[in-house]
């Protein structure tokens, strides 16, 4: 193992989290920052030649290659885990920018009560009336403290939307259920495509509160506080699973890398796969990695920050023998606990005319939150928390969308009769979609797989994860409302895909919003990192990202990930680096 020249700070992972941290640290200190990214370099100009559905949507060209490293999954401790050989219910990113290059860019805040969810649920229902295995926890940081970070993140990525609550005053047309904002969104809402406009009208007629989905694709040309200018979205439809070829969608390569590349104290090394955090006597000494030529390197550093994808943050801790593996039998140990995904429910609806669904962008649409967070759940026994309900035109490719038709139209999935029906129904449908909060449960967690290994022979992460009655009740509530709205829209509905909630299914794409495993909290007995995302046992090790979520909010997590990342950067720069040690 070659010992490299020491650096001040080494960051593992060059996605939104790692590069945001690097930008903050290099702006405010002269310390040397090295980002180690296992994937390849990327830039905006690469993307125009990649407007190809087959390679990106069917073959998942931008994702981590499962042949190199995947995960295994089992439904409970009583069964053995099966490897996810092809993605999958979620799709991990790789390369500079990570999944932040090919995200859909939906950028909602979580509700204030999410951050103290354990307290809120206990006070509302009493411990005895909550599910026995519920494992939700408070985050250790109140919404009010995160609000300035949310606002910074919204400016950084240039969110387009409409406020529903400014300084406590509710504003119709925005999400009236959201927490108080200090500012209106940096950019106004987008123009609206047809299907969401029909949804908006129907939802309003039913007394609900429709609002534009906030998104980090730009509704107008915009310059952020770092002086980075990006153009308005062109609705080309090559959005989620693609890099944006004009830079209208916020991506680490278009908002962070241009700033970082001018900084002399910053460097990024690609093709570097970090395998261990080396540590001694409660201090991290650096990381070991294999470089592009498979040479083993040791990079010493004064501070180590894990900013890789959720699953890999927990995995690196376990492989490095840092902290204690969570055990669901005793509920002791913390690493790997509170794995959450997201309860995705959808109802396909059919119109009388072609919709041009190939146009759009990742977050172009309308949402309601009347059954989101704690809203509207009281009439539904067994539902503690709900989810959003929305219609979006995200840009559908002809391969993925071909064959959508109301159930029972034809008997066969191939041949003349099928082809005729598929052509007749083509481009006439969208989905009413919900992403519900996924609460943490005792038996959902990550550890190292005893059988399957990655390309180097290290154990894969094993997920133990299944749905509970809460998700099923939540899904039933949300899809009942889908049906009600579909009726008011006067469209034909295919019904909900509630089979998805029978058992967790790793092969059916739901969202890439997997979170947890190295969660934040107020006590080292129940969390891996403190409320500033510093490891409880090793003060010079920070574990940042969605891995810190004690449970999953509804909708898309990236904005909240950015908010806790900025708060973590502040604590690191303003407090830790001045007086190294455990923050209190």
């Amino acid at each position, binding site marked *: 193992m070659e010992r490299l020249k020491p650096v001040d700070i080494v960051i593992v992972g060059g996605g939104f989290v790692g590069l945001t941290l690097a930008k903050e640290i290099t702006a405010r200190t002269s310390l040397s920052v090295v980002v180690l990214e296992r994937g390849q370099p990327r830039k905006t100009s690469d993307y125009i030649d990649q407007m190809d559905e087959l390679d990106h949507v069917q073959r998942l060209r931008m994702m981590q*290659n499962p042949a190199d490293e995947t995960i295994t999954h089992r439904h409970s401790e009583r069964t053995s885990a099966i490897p996810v050989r092809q993605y999958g219910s979620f799709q991990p990113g790789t390369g500079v920018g990570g999944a932040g290059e090919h995200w859909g860019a939906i950028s909602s805040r979580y509700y204030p009560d999410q951050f103290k969810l354990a307290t809120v649920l206990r006070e509302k229902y009493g411990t005895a009336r909550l599910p026995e295995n519920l494992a939700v926890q408070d985050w250790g940081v109140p919404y009010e403290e995160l609000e300035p970070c949310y606002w910074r993140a919204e400016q950084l990525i240039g969110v387009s939307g409409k406020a529903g609550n400014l300084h406590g005053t509710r504003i119709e047309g925005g999400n009236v259920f959201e927490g108080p904002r200090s500012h209106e969104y940096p950019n106004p809402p987008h123009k609206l495509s047809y299907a969401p406009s029909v949804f908006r009208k129907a939802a309003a007629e039913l007394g609900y509160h429709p609002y534009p989905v906030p998104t980090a694709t730009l509704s107008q040309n915009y310059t952020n506080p770092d002086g980075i200018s990006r153009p308005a979205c062109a609705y080309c439809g090559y959005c989620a699973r693609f890099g944006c070829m004009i830079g209208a969608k916020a991506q680490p390569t278009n908002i962070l890398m241009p700033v970082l590349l001018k900084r002399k104290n910053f460097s990024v090394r690609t093709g570097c796969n970090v395998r261990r955090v080396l540590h001694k006597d409660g201090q991290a000494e650096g990381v070991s990695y294999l470089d592009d030529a498979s040479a083993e390197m040791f990079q010493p550093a004064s501070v180590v920050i894990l900013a890789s994808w959720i699953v890999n943050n927990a995995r690196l801790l376990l492989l490095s023998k840092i902290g204690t593996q969570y055990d669901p039998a005793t509920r002791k140990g913390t690493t790997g606990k509170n794995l959450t995904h997201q309860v995705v429910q959808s109802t396909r609806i059919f119109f009388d005319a072609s919709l041009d669904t190939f146009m759009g962008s990742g977050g172009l649409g309308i949402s309601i939150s009347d059954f989101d967070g704690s809203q509207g759940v009281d009439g539904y026994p067994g539902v503690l928390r709900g989810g959003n309900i929305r219609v979006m035109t995200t840009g559908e490719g002809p391969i993925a969308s071909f064959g959508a038709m109301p159930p029972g139209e034809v008997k066969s999935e191939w041949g003349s009769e099928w082809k005729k029906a598929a052509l007749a129904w083509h481009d006439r449908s969208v989905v009413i979609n919900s992403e519900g909060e996924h609460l943490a449960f005792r038996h959902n967690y990550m550890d190292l797989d005893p059988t399957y290994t990655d390309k180097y022979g290290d154990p894969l992460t094993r997920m133990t994860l299944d749905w509970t009655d809460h998700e099923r009740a939540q899904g039933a509530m949300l899809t009942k409302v889908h049906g009600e709205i579909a009726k008011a829209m006067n469209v034909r509905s295919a019904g909900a895909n509630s089979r998805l909630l029978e058992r967790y299914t790793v092969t059916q794409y739901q969202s890439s919003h997997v979170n947890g495993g190295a969660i934040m909290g107020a006590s080292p007995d129940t969390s891996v990192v403190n409320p500033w995302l510093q490891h409880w046992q090793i003060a010079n090790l920070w574990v940042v990202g969605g891995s810190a979520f004690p449970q999953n909010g509804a909708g898309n997590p990236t904005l909240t990930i950015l908010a806790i990342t900025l708060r973590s950067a502040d604590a690191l720069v303003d407090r830790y680096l001045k007086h190294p040690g455990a923050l209190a």
Partner: protein
Amino acid sequence: MRRREFITLPAASLGGLLLYSLAGEPLRMHAQTGDVRVPLRFFTADEARVIQAACALIFPSDESGPGANEAGVVVYIDRQLAGPYGRDKYRYTKPPFVDAAPEYGYQGKESPREIYREGIVKLGKFAELSAPEQEKQLRAIEKTIFFRMLRQHTIEGMFSDPMHGGNAGLIGWQLIGYPGPLMSYRSEIDKPPGETKRRKPVSLAQVVGHPVIGWEDEKD
């Protein structure tokens, strides 16, 4: 190095000349017969004829429009199998391989290449059977991984960019009114149905003005 094999496609049945969509490959036009001889990368000529016949049943050429034959779907499948996808470069293939519940998806050891080879052997003299006999044979294997792949690949060959070898003459996109990877719909995104432009489709190479290669053609 195996003997170079070709599939002969009647140019009259193809949705426009395949020439630009087969950029980089030597093509022989037989002027008198109007045939196009497409060099095969993976299949033998006999195998290609079986796959071509099966694809034509899955996505037929009939009164609702052109199908797999006109789009050159067999050429698309041949290239996918010859490339990294065909040999499972992007699938986790470490043992042990175990029987798992259907929701874990395909868990087998065999790569797409092996699945096709085995499936084609089982179809035997398929290309020479009558259409009703062919249909009967395909119905009998509907639930197999081979058929599920073949059906998915047929749809991909109909509607993917012609750089991948199918969708010849953009005939698949014409069939469904898909305009191709256009750069902007800023002036149309908020228009109601029926008020947007109808366009003649364009391929990615036409949009960007230079040849583009698919993932299957990337060097290792």
